[in-house]
């Protein structure tokens, strides 16, 4: 499957994790995202791996500071 681009990643997160993020928020620090919580990363790993159809580098993903960085990891994995 194709890794999501940034707007698609935002849409995926809103749909699967129940947030209400806007595309312009992808560069914000994760902690600055409305409704963000570290436990959401646990769910995001599962959601993203299913979306791209292959395992992702979880250690790097957990270290990511923003959704842009997470999206880049999903693309390059």
């Amino acid at each position, binding site marked *: 499957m194709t890794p999501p681009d940034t707007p698609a990643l935002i849409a995926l997160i809103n749909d*699967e*994790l129940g947030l209400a993020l806007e595309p312009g928020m992808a560069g914000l620090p994760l902690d600055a995202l409305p409704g963000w*919580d*570290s*436990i*959401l*990363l*646990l*769910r995001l*790993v*599962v*959601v993203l791996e*299913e979306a791209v159809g292959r395992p992702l580098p*979880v*250690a790097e993903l*957990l270290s990511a500071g923003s959704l842009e960085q997470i999206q880049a990891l999903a693309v390059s994995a």
Partner: protein
Amino acid sequence: MSGAGTGAGVRMRLRSAAGALPGEPVDNAELQARLGLSAEWVDRFVGTRTRHFALGTTDLAGLCTTAARTALASAGTGAQRMDFVVLATATPDALMPTTAAVVADRLGISGVPVFQLQSGCSGTVQALALAEAMLVSGAGQGLVIGGDVCTKHLALDRDFRRMPPAELVNYVLFGDGAGAAVVSAEAGPGSADCVAVRHRPVRPGLPPGQRVEWYGAADLGSAEPAPPVSEDYKAVQRLVPELAGQEGEELLGLVGWSGQDLDHLLPPQLGGLMTERITAELRRVLKADRAAEVSCVAETGNTGNALLLLQLARLLPRLSPGEKALALCVESSHWISAGLALEAS
């Protein structure tokens, strides 16, 4: 609470403590294999390395009975010599008969009072306080038991992507286990004097930090039953360190100790990382620089009512003559602060 001070004023001695954990430890890699939850996330954000799951292997009564037998043997006494039993749990095998009564029966204890306390993480302190009252009113020795089978609430076929964080967090925090202690009015080899034991709700009106449901026939027909366990973990993260610090300061003041007097510190335990943080904060607030941490949650997971007994089982062999220990618990369900001050007999 028990009277402050030491020596002649002490009304309860901890003679032994023991734990029972079901099966082999389940590490984070196995948790990932079973549940699909990232092991690296658990390592990084929770810090609990292993836990034990009872599901399908034993019930709570079985774990409690095993722990009690070990504690009795360790104290060099027998079940028939117990004058009472107090068992604390949030997850009894059934609402009736009580798990306490089942455990007493399996141990061959009859004809003495058997209590069960419905409780969370402060349950063992509550049980010890009740035990102390029994000893004060003439009992010679008794059993204090605590345990939980948290996996009762884990459904392995759930879709974690859609699980609310307040529910999901329980899958990575908790484990199953039981602990037991023999307490007596008289000191014995290797015993610890219980200098103070107390517990009480401290945040009236605050919404519960954790809620565990039980369902009856009428509830089961409901279209959307409430999740069996939910946790306001942000409130827990914020309040538990604060309340533990307050309880520690007050308890030290009541018994006339300073933090510098403490040789051992038994902190509240939630997950491995949070316990590390709470311990560091307690050492700072209480000025208990040289107190050695006695904890188990990184290896056992959060076993609810068993936790303090598992900590006490680790403490007693380390407690040298004259040493002092302080144990602190915060039950987030209704924000109950609890503490125990111990001194080697």
